[in-house]
């Protein structure tokens, strides 16, 4: 009996060895390729379709967000979390970007920036033009932190500095803000490079150098496109009127 079974078993084994193993291998390879393709497509699709709204506290980011998306004026409070929504550009219905409004409070801003910086295709840095003189150093510091971030330097998203609150008479012009920021960032380059490195070891090999070494800092030295635009989220006619966001919207169309 046992002798009769053995040749049968041998035959079975031989049969199974050849094509079965091969088919298993082919199946595995197919799965692996599908997986890789899927990951690649995912990466392409979700990468960098977001426009981040950054800025100090009370710069007007949430109101800007509301105006762009709904066109109406809304009362706002200090944001504690981010809000994101899809913004459809008015002329071109097919392309759309995701607007993400991040909180500006000091204890939250870096946390949220970490989370969303990889997905950023463009950054809108909102500056309060009225309180700018007082807050120059804080604005410059935050801007510096955004600019030297390794992910931002690698992706080089387009940067727009929106000088908000232009409806108030004491607002500074975009040109003045640009000059002041350049001066301040110039100084910050020196002081920050001498600052102690952070404990989490994120800055490998020291903080990145901003702009060219010998010359004074200029926004044109950055690897990304930088523009300055004046806007007013509240609008000159108060709460009922339209907001003055033309420059901003044109830039968004360009970027998308």
């Amino acid at each position, binding site marked *: 009996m046992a002798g009769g079974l053995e040749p049968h078993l041998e035959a079975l084994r031989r049969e199974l060895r050849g094509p079965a193993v091969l088919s298993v291998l082919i199946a595995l390879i197919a799965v692996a390729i599908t997986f890789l393709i899927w990951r690649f497509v995912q990466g392409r699709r979700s990468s960098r379709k977001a426009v981040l709204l950054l800025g100090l506290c009370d710069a007007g980011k*949430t109101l800007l967000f*509301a105006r762009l*998306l*709904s066109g*109406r004026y*809304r*009362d*706002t*409070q*200090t*944001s*504690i*979390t*981010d*809000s*994101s*929504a*899809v913004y459809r550009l008015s002329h071109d219905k097919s392309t759309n970007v995701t607007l993400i*409004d991040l*909180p500006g*409070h*000091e*204890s*939250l801003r*870096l*946390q949220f920036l970490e989370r969303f910086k990889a997905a950023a295709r463009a950054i809108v840095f909102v500056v309060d033009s009225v309180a700018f003189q007082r807050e120059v*150093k*804080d604005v410059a*510091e935050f801007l510096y932190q955004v600019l030297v971030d390794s992910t931002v330097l690698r992706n080089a998203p387009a940067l727009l500095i929106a000088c908000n609150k232009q409806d108030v008479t004491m607002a500074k012009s975009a040109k003045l803000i640009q000059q002041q920021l350049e001066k301040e960032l110039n*100084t*910050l380059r*020196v*002081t*920050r490079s*001498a*600052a102690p490195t952070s404990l989490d070891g994120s800055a490998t090999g020291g903080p990145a150098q901003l702009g060219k070494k010998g010359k004074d800092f200029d926004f044109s030295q950055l690897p990304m496109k930088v523009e300055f635009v004046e806007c007013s989220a509240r609008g000159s006619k108060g709460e009922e009127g339209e907001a003055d966001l033309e420059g901003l919207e044109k830039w968004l169309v360009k970027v998308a």
Partner: protein
Amino acid sequence: MLDFFTIFSKGGLVLWCFQGVRGPAATAPVNALIRSVLLQERGGNNSFTHEALTLKYKLDNQFELVFVVGFQKILTLTYVDKLIDDVHKEFRDKYRNEFQQKGALGLLNGTFDFKDDFMRLLRDAEESSKVRAPTVMKTFEQSLKSQKTVKCMIETRGEKPKEKVKNKKNKGSKKDGTEAVAAPSKASAGDKQLSAAGDKEELTKDEILQKNREEFFRRHMKAGEKSRSPKPDAQKEKGKKPRVWDLGNSNAKVLDYSNSATNGSAEACPVEEFDPDMALGDKNREPGRLYDLEYESDDEAEEEKVVQNPSKPSVKKGGLGGMFGMLKGLVGSKSLTREDMDPVLEKMKDHLIAKNVAAEIAVQLCESVAKKLEGKVMGTFTTVTSTVKQALQEALVQILQPQRRVDVLRDVMDAQRHRRPYVVTFCGVNGVGKSTNLAKV
């Protein structure tokens, strides 16, 4: 009499606002509330004072909303808490669709016409606080004394016979007294009737009895609210220690049997058993005082038995459901409840205290994180532990972020330009290395 009532999303959009009294706008106080309480993780206590206003708030973590009410500090409005809860429920139910389906766009474009509902709720709340039924005195049958059986009164063995007889007489005569008198009267009224007959000792004893009973109830209620649970061994040890009687009713900690009730049903059983035993065992010490406290311990034992019995079957059911609950919690979305978070938070709190964080601060921090997470919907494949740990980590990072710009060199350059000295102060307790560091600097 409210100054304002605001409902806004955590993203910063004000969804609905009610300005009660003509006064300054609501934005400044609410911003102060957000910055000092919510962002600094002081959210354990739900009220906050800003200048002349008191602000009470409530978080809805499922839909990311904040409800804030502000009123003058000098007013003491009792209906505010209830009002916030009612408004929360109603608002959430009314606009549930907008929140769930449309997300941020829904918040932006939706009109939240809540004024009528709010006025109705406000009127109800105000009326309920004004109308308070006159407190009817308890009849003797309703009071606790009538629920004490004769049996527990007889248990006092080895006592001075004088006391025993007197107190028995008290109870018997009290019962007779109220049967005779038709009108409802408190037990104390009965006492007072007797005090004329008895001597001074009796009167004080009854007063002590009353006082002890009230204190016992107070402690029992308080212990029911707090869920501080000392270790079971420590609890047993405390029970077997010889008791010290100063005045019989002052040392709350020793007499606090109620802590064991919060340990869960497993703990309650041993406590129930040894209370009467212990009472009997110790009666040789101060028989007179003991009699009163035996009442209370028996009282407590009876009530604990009553309380624990309904909770025991629910615990048994929980054991079976717990297994499925664990699997259910892993997949699918379920919202966090306090009971889920409590064990994890306890561990975190102990961990913080072990790392030299002050106990009070650790408690407040855990309270604040619990408030932030209550009702939040967890994503798939996230356990409660990981969510709570993540939230606590974020909270700690948030607190420890510097609130202002810390750039010494920049400020030094400024000071040099203005020909001012830049002062750096080294402060600390003795022995941490101030002078050593200063020498290096």
